[in-house]
């Protein structure tokens, strides 16, 4: 963030009118620096005009009634065009284009916020009240909850039973193991690609197949991991059902998730390593520092913030996976801390199953409540992870100066 530029002419953003004194069009400019500029209140005039024109247009177009959203959208379009034309008339084409793009960038930001805010709102509105009134959700598992208790909750107002601590533990353990497996592999592979390979066939093959890896459907990754672990166990331990039933465990799920995570880690890390300026590496070599030291002390710290961001993305990619975990780690109502033995339930599996297959088919409300509360908790976990990644990045990143 620290490299964000100081805006040379911030004053033209619609939300931040310039602090310089507004000049009327007729008055003579006082100072040559602001000569030929449109006055600071122009955007307000254009905005007001756009709202009016938008209202007129929506009345013409909309067949049935007045649409508030439609009015705002139309007005925004009119505003962007209006500002362009105004600036072009008062100032010049270059400034007009500049303003047009600035407005479009702002528009992109606002357009994107609508669905994202709506999404967050949905999850918080559905999940937060349940979570606050039933903190037990965080400490209980589903070992004593069944259709009868849920029916009692829905029909007779009994307190909401059960919880998802088992899912919480499951998700944490599986994700941690998956991260421990995939981040070092992904990181080293991208270091190889950027620092060591000189565009040879091996590097090209890796890049190519990492791309292919992003196209593995998640369920296929799950089936593959299951088959691989099964092969491993039957080869080394034996084929009796006792051993076969060991295949479903947290580790299998973590391997499935690693297959999905590695390409994301490699792709994003590679991108981040590539943009580290060569001058930094050369300076380090010039001081007699060995290559691996240079990578560890110069290249990685420079790009750590981007790498952390990419790793968080990769973790995010897999914390929400449902199908591969169900295939590889099973579904359990009780808590299991050990990712190397026994079934585990992950939070997304829990959410999905509670949503589509309620504990009490005739009384789905308690299941939905638990599902939304779990979704909220899942988001909060990811948020915390994100925070940790940022702190890590901050701690390792070199002090930024202009380069």
């Amino acid at each position, binding site marked *: 963030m620290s490299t964000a530029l100081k805006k040379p002419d911030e004053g033209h953003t619609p939300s931040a009118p310039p602090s310089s004194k507004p000049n009327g069009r007729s008055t003579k400019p006082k100072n040559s620096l602001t000569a030929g500029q449109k006055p600071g209140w122009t955007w307000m005039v254009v905005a007001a005009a756009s709202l009016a024109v938008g209202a007129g247009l929506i009345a013409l177009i909309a067949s049935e009634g007045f649409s508030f959203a439609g009015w705002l959208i139309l007005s925004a379009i009119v505003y962007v065009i209006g500002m362009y034309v105004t600036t072009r008339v008062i100032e010049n084409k270059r400034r007009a284009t500049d303003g047009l793009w600035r407005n479009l960038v702002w528009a992109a930001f606002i357009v994107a916020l609508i669905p994202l805010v709506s999404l967050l709102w949905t999850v918080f509105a559905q999940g937060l009240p349940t979570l606050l009134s039933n903190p037990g959700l965080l400490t209980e598992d589903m070992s004593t909850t069944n259709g009868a208790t849920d029916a009692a909750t829905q029909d007779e107002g009994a307190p909401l039973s059960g919880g998802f601590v088992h899912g919480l533990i499951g998700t944490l353990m599986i994700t941690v193991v998956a991260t421990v497996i995939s981040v070092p592999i992904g990181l080293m592979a991208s270091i190889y690609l950027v620092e060591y390979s000189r565009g040879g066939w091996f590097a090209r093959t890796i890049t190519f197949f990492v791309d292919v890896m992003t196209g593995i459907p998640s369920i296929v990754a799950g089936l593959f991991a299951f088959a691989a672990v099964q092969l491993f166990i039957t080869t080394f331990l034996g084929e009796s059902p006792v051993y*076969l039933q060991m295949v479903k465990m947290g580790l299998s799920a973590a391997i499935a998730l690693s297959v999905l995570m590695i390409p994301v880690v490699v792709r994003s890390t590679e991108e981040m390593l590539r943009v580290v300026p060569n001058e930094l590496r050369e300076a380090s070599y010039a001081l007699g520092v060995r290559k691996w030291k240079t990578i560890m002390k110069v290249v990685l710290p420079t790009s750590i913030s981007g790498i952390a961001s990419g790793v968080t993305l990769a973790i995010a990619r897999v914390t929400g996976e449902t199908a591969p975990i169900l295939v590889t780690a099973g579904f359990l109502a009780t808590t299991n801390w050990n990712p190397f033995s026994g079934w585990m339930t992950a939070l997304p599996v829990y959410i999905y199953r509670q949503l589509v297959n309620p504990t009490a088919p005739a009384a789905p409300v308690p299941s939905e409540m638990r599902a939304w509360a779990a979704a909220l908790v899942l988001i909060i976990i990811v948020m915390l992870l994100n925070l940790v990644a940022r702190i890590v990045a901050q701690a390792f990143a070199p002090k930024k100066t202009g380069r």
Partner: protein
Amino acid sequence: MKLKRFGTAAAVLAAGTLTLSACSGGDTGGDGEAVDSGSVSGTLIGGGASSQESAMTAWTQGVTEVSPDLTVNYDPVGSGAGREGFLAGQYSFAGSDAAMDEEEQEQAAAVCGPDGVFHVPSYISPVAVAFNLEGVDTVNMDAETIAKVFAGEITTWNDDAIAEQNEGTELPDTPITVVHRSDDSGTTENFTAYLAEAAADAWEFGEVETWPSEIAAESAQQTSGVVSLAGSTDGAITYADASQVGELGTVAVGVGDDYVEYSAEAASKAVNASEANEDGSVELDRATEEAGVYPIVLVSYHIFCQQYQDQETADLAKAFAEYVVSEEGQQAGADSAGSAPISDDTRESALERIGNITVQG
């Protein structure tokens, strides 16, 4: 380092196995004798149909009342995956909406010994034909009408074919929106099997697990999905596990000269009136004209080995199976999932088969 790690994992696993076998060491039941189910301990692993997930939750909790140390894990991966996992030895029992076919039964010899497998019809649930029509709670329809509605040939609620079976009910001219399951499911299979058997002329698509894509209609995932979609669409009609239809109106299905509303009794009657195969599966007579039978029924089986490879699993399976078909077990399922408890006749023949679970060799 690699070996060391692996060694640790193997040691942990081996220790786990030892504990398990030590627990079962004192137990010597089997060979047809009744097991004292209170004394078994260990973990029984099964997987399969998600239709019985809710009942299974109740059973896995309820079974601890009779055998406190028996833990049952059930993986709701779906019938096909459940049968496959069972055949591969990953599950000790399978839950399945369909019986194993001959080919699968032959494969089963590999894990279950030469006597193969048997089915227990543990979970019976009527499939309701449910609709959402303002002010109408129940509508009479015979099989042919239902087939035509779902095939898209009858498109409005006040069509003559519906109206003449419902004298006295005022039907609006709302268009019918057919809602079906988007996922492959046993419910779809049972429902289309009913249409194919009871209304062969009007339903040309046969018995299918996937809704025929030739019919343009709305769809949603899982029972809860179709029910909520139907609930939010005026004029919608769908088929779903009766326990989940909630506020929707339901169709009384024409059987013989009568119209039968779904009910637990009418559903278990359908199973009772059907022929049982040697392997425990039932051939439902969906075109039946017997009075009081509700013909659209989903029967979900538990599939067990006739012979298990070790004593412990055999005892666990026996204890669990006995609990599930017992009156308490069936009642627990009914309370949780709204399923129909099996009749005494069905229970008796099931208990006989369960009693014959033995160990190989």
